[in-house]
């Protein structure tokens, strides 16, 4: 395999791996968080509004981690 093909292979492999592995953590985290939020809403329906607002803030912060992986994948494919 020549150098250009090896570089291309590394780029695409790295992009796919970064997106796939980077989605594991936030996926697990989102599942736990939304599950807990639903649990607390079911236990105390009167605080549903507050819980939902804070859940969305948490979703935004957690989800950003997966999107960093997405941006790294984009950079690997189109820039690097």
């Amino acid at each position, binding site marked *: 395999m020549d150098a250009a093909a090896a570089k291309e292979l590394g780029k695409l492999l790295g992009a796919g791996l970064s997106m796939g592995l980077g989605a594991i953590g936030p996926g697990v985290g989102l599942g736990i968080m939304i599950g807990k939020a639903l649990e607390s809403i079911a236990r105390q329906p009167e605080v549903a*509004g*507050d819980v939902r*607002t804070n859940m*969305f*803030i948490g*979703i*935004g*912060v957690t*989800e*950003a981690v997966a*999107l*960093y992986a*997405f*941006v790294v994948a*984009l950079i690997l494919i*189109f820039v690097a």
Partner: protein
Amino acid sequence: MKHPRRWIIALLVLGFLILLALLPGGHKTEFQVAGEFQREVLIKLPTIGPFDMSVTKTVAYLWITVLIVCVVAIVISRSMKLKPGRFQFAMETMYDLARDGIVGSVMKSGKKQWFPYVGGVFFFILVSNLIGLFPLPFGEHHLPSFYAATANLNVTLMLALFTFLFTHYAGIRKNGALRYVKAWAPAGAPPVLKQMIWFIHVISEIFRLISLSVRLFANMVAGHAILAVFFAMALIFQSYLVGLALQGASVLIYMFEIFVAFIQAFIFAILSAVYIGGALDQDH
């Protein structure tokens, strides 16, 4: 003909779609995802200093967004009725969401002062995201294509920069510059630890800028890339049958994108409110 107005609207939409299909410029035979995000220059203008003043696709989308937000806001504020119609009721619900759901639920003080910024950013991003779901003839060869102004890092970074600047402006104006910066580290900690915590806080402030802009940008890019891939299945597999079979999936993705457009606008606005509120009422 039970609902004549509905029929007229349906006919208008159909006519618009046929007009879009009749636009000159040929058709695509190949599909490249990256090509959907290229900034086509619509009007070529000279470069002034380091700034290229050309009107690109992104600028056109921004103008359309501003136009829609301004026109809707002016129309709805001029024609307020005591008994709201359907349109006014929808707008009032959105306004209530921005005022009570976003600003009211996370900010302690300065609600009145900062609601215009947070609400404005909410509606701007919402309209911008939703426009991205309509095919507009700004693609290559003036073909209709999907794009959103917020699927461009320059736009989202500018929005995040506004939040960043307003956060520190609000904090410094309320608490005074020295007290505001001092409060970034807890008062009771030992000196060495205090310096380290202060340093970490500075880094986290800068990372807020990155995460706020990259979140919106990456969400819109990923959503539009998936939409483009699903709508172009016939081109990717070079077969009409596959394209037809996967149209149901593209409808589902499209519905999810409407949800994402709302959620992202909501998250951007609520995080702006959280940051500004945190700078106003420092807890340590």
